[in-house]
């Protein structure tokens, strides 16, 4: 068979696989929502529209997401300017520290906030003690608490993208603006901001989608306040499965709508590759201003690192010894020992590792195949493969969990449906599908960056396809593969939103064990799990850091 022929067969196979795993479950969910005992029906849709609680949850999802974008921008953009444009004392270290919330898996961040600002958290207790109060000043509950966690965990998108945008600015553009008599504000407005427009739009979209799919914070802090992902889970618990399908469809529709709106807003020029040198950092001459800027930067960094430190501290607290004191009275390493000695507690660690590994290997393989097969394809199949690889990104995690649960809880081989729910395979599958977008984005970027004449050079030097792949393509793709794999692993390892809907006792991952430890007031063990998650995420991130920004919607 010719080169072109095998490529076409491979592309067709991949397209089929993606249609089956990505699109088919979503279509099934949509169909379930409008099906009754006898034929098609709009009953569930009518019920959905008629219930005020449903409408409130949908509205809640929308405004929480928009507010999250605003807050994350408010925190992330100034930080990016401070670190990216100004020469601060210890600027390099500061730049790294400020990005650290990225290594806190969603649920772990929530737990850390609970320890820190919850009713019995450090800060609350400290303030009660200082002010001599009987009651805590606030309750970490409702929309405010959700927004706090969102702002904290999502400003990183704005920070990283805007900082990268600032670094890619051509210094001679700033010089040109200055020589044309533009002052600082006019340069900012007419040169810098237009250049940053794609970065800002990208960060806004990323934040909106992440906030829309966010589950951990509303689940733990929501209380009576519902957003659509938590509403779906509650409806399922009530046994109203088909109403849950309609809810799922509404959330998916909201996500796709947002994608459309943001896409139209983000088109336009700007952010093109730089030709000249990057701009030098601005040195603050006045001493007082310099000290003030440094203090603000480092103060913020300390505030942003408090959750990490809290988690580490709590992980050393023995069970039941810490109640009302601002600082724990005793410390122990027993919590960590329990993780390795107690077989019941070891299980989730082992589970998370193998589940994430399987999902990562599969995601990298599919993403690599997709990138290589679609690189030099005619446009139609390439677009289809790229769209399917990106689709799970636009769909909140809860939606995908429900879709997979629906598709793979029935045995009907002719319709491509098998019973996977309740088996060990459903979680790796869910992680895999959810990881496809971030993995394939990293790997596709790597493949696109390859000079096509390298392939041609190898061919003209007599190297066959296998030798070209092994000797030229794969070695050059190593950074992209590592980046894609590390993103996939970290996301799967810390996943909560899909796990809570699809896990079985035997496959329970770390995040669920954290939740059940918390419920049993086993705070130290929960924190120890959290620290393990955090450290593994950080190490894997560091291993894979070849550059690409993080782009998944964490649950």
């Amino acid at each position: 068979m010719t080169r072109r022929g095998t490529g076409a067969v491979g592309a067709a196979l991949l397209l089929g696989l993606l249609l089956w795993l990505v699109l088919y479950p979503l279509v099934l969910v949509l169909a379930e929502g409008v099906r009754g005992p006898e034929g098609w029906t709009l009953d569930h849709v009518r019920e959905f529209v008629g219930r005020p609680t449903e409408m409130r949850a949908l509205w809640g999802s929308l405004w929480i997401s928009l507010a999250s974008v605003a807050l994350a921008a408010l925190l992330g953009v100034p930080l990016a300017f401070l670190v990216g444009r100004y020469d601060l004392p210890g600027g390099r270290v500061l730049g790294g520290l400020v990005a650290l919330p990225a290594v806190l898996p969603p649920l772990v961040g929530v737990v850390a906030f609970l320890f820190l600002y919850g009713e019995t958290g450090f800060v609350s207790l400290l303030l009660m003690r200082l002010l001599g109060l009987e009651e805590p000043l606030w309750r970490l509950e409702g929309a405010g608490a959700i927004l706090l966690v969102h702002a904290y965990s999502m400003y990183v998108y704005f920070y990283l993208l805007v900082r990268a945008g600032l670094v890619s600015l051509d210094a001679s553009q700033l010089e040109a603006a200055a020589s044309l008599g533009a002052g600082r504000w006019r340069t900012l407005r007419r040169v810098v901001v237009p250049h940053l427009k794609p970065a800002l739009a990208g960060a806004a979209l990323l934040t909106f989608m992440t906030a829309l799919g966010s589950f951990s914070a509303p689940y733990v802090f929501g209380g009576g306040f519902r957003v659509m992902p938590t509403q779906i889970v509650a409806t399922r618990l009530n046994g109203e499965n088909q109403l849950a399908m309609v809810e799922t469809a509404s959330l998916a529709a909201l996500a796709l709508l947002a994608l459309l709106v943001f896409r139209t807003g983000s088109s336009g020029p700007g952010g093109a590759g730089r030709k000249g040198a990057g701009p030098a950092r601005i040195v603050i001459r006045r001493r007082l201003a310099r000290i003030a800027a440094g203090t603000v930067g480092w103060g913020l960094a300390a505030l942003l690192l408090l959750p990490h430190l809290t988690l580490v501290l709590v992980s050393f607290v023995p069970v039941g010894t810490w109640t009302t004191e601002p600082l724990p009275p005793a410390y122990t390493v027993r919590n960590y020992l329990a993780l390795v000695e107690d077989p019941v507690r070891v299980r989730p660690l082992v589970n998370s590792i193998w589940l994430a590994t399987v999902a990562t290997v599969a995601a990298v393989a599919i993403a690599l195949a997709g990138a290589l097969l679609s690189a030099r394809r005619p446009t139609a199949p390439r677009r289809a493969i790229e769209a399917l690889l990106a689709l799970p990104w636009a769909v909140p995690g809860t939606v995908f969990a429900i879709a997979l649960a629906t598709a793979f809880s029935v045995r009907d081989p002719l319709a491509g449906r098998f019973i996977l729910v309740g088996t060990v395979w459903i979680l790796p599958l869910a992680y895999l599908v959810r990881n496809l977008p971030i993995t394939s984005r990293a790997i596709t970027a790597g493949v696109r960056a390859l000079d096509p004449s390298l392939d041609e050079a190898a061919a003209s030097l007599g190297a066959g396809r296998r030798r070209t792949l092994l000797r030229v393509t794969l070695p050059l793709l190593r950074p992209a593969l590592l980046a894609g794999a590390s993103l996939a692993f970290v996301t799967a390892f810390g996943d909560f939103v899909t796990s809570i809907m699809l896990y079985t006792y035997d496959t329970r991952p770390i995040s669920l064990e954290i939740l059940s430890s918390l419920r049993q007031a086993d705070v130290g063990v929960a924190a120890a799990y959290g620290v393990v998650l955090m450290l593994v995420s950080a190490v894997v991130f560091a291993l894979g850091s070849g550059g690409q920004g993080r782009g998944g919607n964490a649950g």
Partner: protein
Amino acid sequence: MDGVLGPARTRQRAGGGAVTPFLAVEGLAKRFDRTVAVDDVTLSIERGEMLALLGPSGSGKTTMLRLLAGFETPDAGRVVVEGEDVTRVEPVHRRFGMVFQHYALFPHLDVGENVGFGLESLGVRGAELGDRVGRALALVDLAGLERRRVDQLSGGQQQRVALARALAPEPRVLLLDEPLSNLDPTLRERTRREIRDLIRRVGITTVLVTHEQDEAFDLGDRVAVLRGGRLEQVGTPDELYAAPANRFVGGFVGRSSVVPVTVLGPTEWGTRIAVEGVEWEIERPAGHPVILPGAAVLMVRPEALRLGDDPQAIVGTVTGRRFTGPSSFFTVLTASGATLEVVAPPAAVRAGERVGILPSRRAAGGLHLFLAEEG
């Protein structure tokens, strides 16, 4: 040298008579979507010859080269090497060496591994591999740099490594894609000489693509001028300059000016024309068709004109001068608004002066008459 490249590639120019070409392109055509990139091109290249494909961007010259290399499959036509039809042969098996415009050196391999890459494809291993890599590098004056990283080399060195890599497996044909476009101007002329000498020494049949006429004229034994995917003319640099087949080739090759004229009729040895209110007689090159009376254009080389007072001179005003040392190019604006360029001693006239222009007595070959509507 034979040790590196084999006796088969020793240079031997055809000595007249019917010679089967070493490399032949027959009726080659390629279109992308709706644009025609290469349109029915037929060419033949002798063993050891260097052919330059010259044309503006979009002329199809790079597509031609990629069709030769096998990276594109033609819609029609054949590529034949030494009597073997290689049109459908994959680039992997074609044994054409290629130097890419941006070199396409493998960034993760060192210089030696890059140069040895094609040899390994042929199954060369061990001591012989090292030996042949060393010789290929010596050929491009980079002996001993095997273990150097590619990104530590200068642009000129990278290009030589690319050349060594392409030559090491002893290809049948060498293809060069804009070989000098990536070098800065000071380096360009020197590299051009080096490439020319190296290829002459090796004697390999070579096709190179360029949009610079200097490069084409200096490197090519023959030059093929392409426009819009069509082959306009192929010939030695002298032939193209002295007898351009049409106005495009004439304008693309060398300096020239163009004026509209009226053909009055044939004379004993040429054509009588009316130009700017005077009458000139233009020599007609052998083999060129007779142009019937009517509108036409005259293409003139600067050296085919001279300044002088004469009733038959075109009168105009000097508007500019380009100084080139022993002589200068003067730009003269005629009464009808045409611009003519004339060569004269630097101090002959000054800007603003009124002058007369006449055909030069010696350079009769520098005046060409073409049909007016011809592009």
